[in-house]
């Protein structure tokens, strides 16, 4: 933290993120770690909409936006071009996308980029639904969450599918580095960004970013919810080197996991869940940790 005051801001204020958006915290800190010699490709999504309202831009580094599905392909193209021109040395190539642009729409391009082994660090900013288009469910939305396309009612508990384990799927591509991080643990986040950038070849970072607008929580609760997600065990901070997903290294293990209700009850998207439903989520989290601790 001590360096914070002196570092140059590479994601300028004046961007149009909602008040309390955790993506702002994530992008600012990631770019501070990456430094100015970075080129980024961005997918359509919250981040693109709020940061590049023409004729302005919040970015202080070169950024390319092409389409929703191809941030990974564009980044791969930039990386190959730099390599062929002999100008790759000392330049980071990154891709930023939301969960919609990663879990669903951009998955094919991402998988291809990982498989071809481009030296790109791909960052997925996960707010667990299509937030900028009006909170539609995504394959990243957790079970039970209310969204505009998974509304709870007499026949529905909200989202009916579990969350896709995307970071593990990326690690299973046998890439040199994959990790999960979140905004409450900035040191851990920056440390993982550094490792990802220093790794030769593709790296994937799954960054968990609470969304006051879509999750229906107070704008001042974003960091608190990010912390609670980790402390309750709902979101696990881990890293996997060389695709070794059988030996995930958990980088922060809560001493005693808090009950998931503490995390769920702060968000109105889970407001309709009964004690039984919360128990079901608790059980799933417990089972996940049993497997991790095996």
């Amino acid at each position, binding site marked *: 933290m001590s360096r914070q005051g002196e570092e140059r801001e590479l994601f300028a204020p004046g961007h149009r993120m909602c008040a309390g958006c955790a993506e702002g915290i994530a992008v600012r800190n990631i770019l501070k770690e990456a430094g100015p010699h970075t080129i980024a490709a961005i997918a359509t999504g919250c981040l693109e909409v709020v940061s590049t309202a023409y004729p302005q831009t919040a970015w202080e580094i070169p950024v390319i936006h092409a389409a929703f599905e191809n941030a990974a392909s564009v980044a791969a193209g930039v990386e190959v071009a730099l390599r062929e021109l002999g100008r790759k040395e000392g330049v980071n190539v990154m891709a930023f996308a939301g969960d919609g642009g990663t879990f669903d729409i951009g998955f094919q391009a991402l998988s291809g980029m990982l498989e071809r082994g481009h030296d790109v660090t791909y960052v997925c900013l996960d707010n667990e639904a299509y937030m900028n288009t009006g909170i539609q469910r995504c394959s990243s939305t957790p079970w039970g969450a209310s969204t505009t396309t998974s509304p709870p009612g007499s026949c529905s508990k909200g989202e009916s599918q579990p969350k896709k384990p995307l970071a593990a799927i990326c690690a299973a591509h046998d890439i040199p580095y994959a990790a999960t991080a979140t905004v409450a643990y*900035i040191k851990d986040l920056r440390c993982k960004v550094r490792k990802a950038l220093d790794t030769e070849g593709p790296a994937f970072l799954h960054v968990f970013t609470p969304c006051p607008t879509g999750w229906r929580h107070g704008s001042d609760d974003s960091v608190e919810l990010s912390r609670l997600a980790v402390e309750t065990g709902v979101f696990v901070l881990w890293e996997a080197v060389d695709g070794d997903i059988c030996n995930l290294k958990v980088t922060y293990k809560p001493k005693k996991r808090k009950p998931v209700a503490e995390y769920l009850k702060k968000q109105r998207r889970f407001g309709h869940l009964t004690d039984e439903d919360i128990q079901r989520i608790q059980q799933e989290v417990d089972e996940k940790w049993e497997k991790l601790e095996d």
Partner: protein
Amino acid sequence: MSSLKITIGAVNTRPGSSREYKTGGWRTMRPQVDVEKCIQCLQCLAYCPDGAISKSENAVQIDLDYCKGCGICAKECPVKAIVMLKEEK
């Protein structure tokens, strides 16, 4: 905006130009820093989604041109040196 000329490929050559757009007007709550209490740990600076906080000589200062009043700084401050006050005209 009708006079706005769009460059080929909508290329934007003005990095950080979002600073022209002041988001401070969105605010309903205004943070106030207690200079005596602040220990300059700079956690608020790291956690501010808008990059509106900077280090001052012996505390931190919040740029009200950009602060949207989300309140994360006040909530995360370990010594409770920031309070949120109702924004009044």
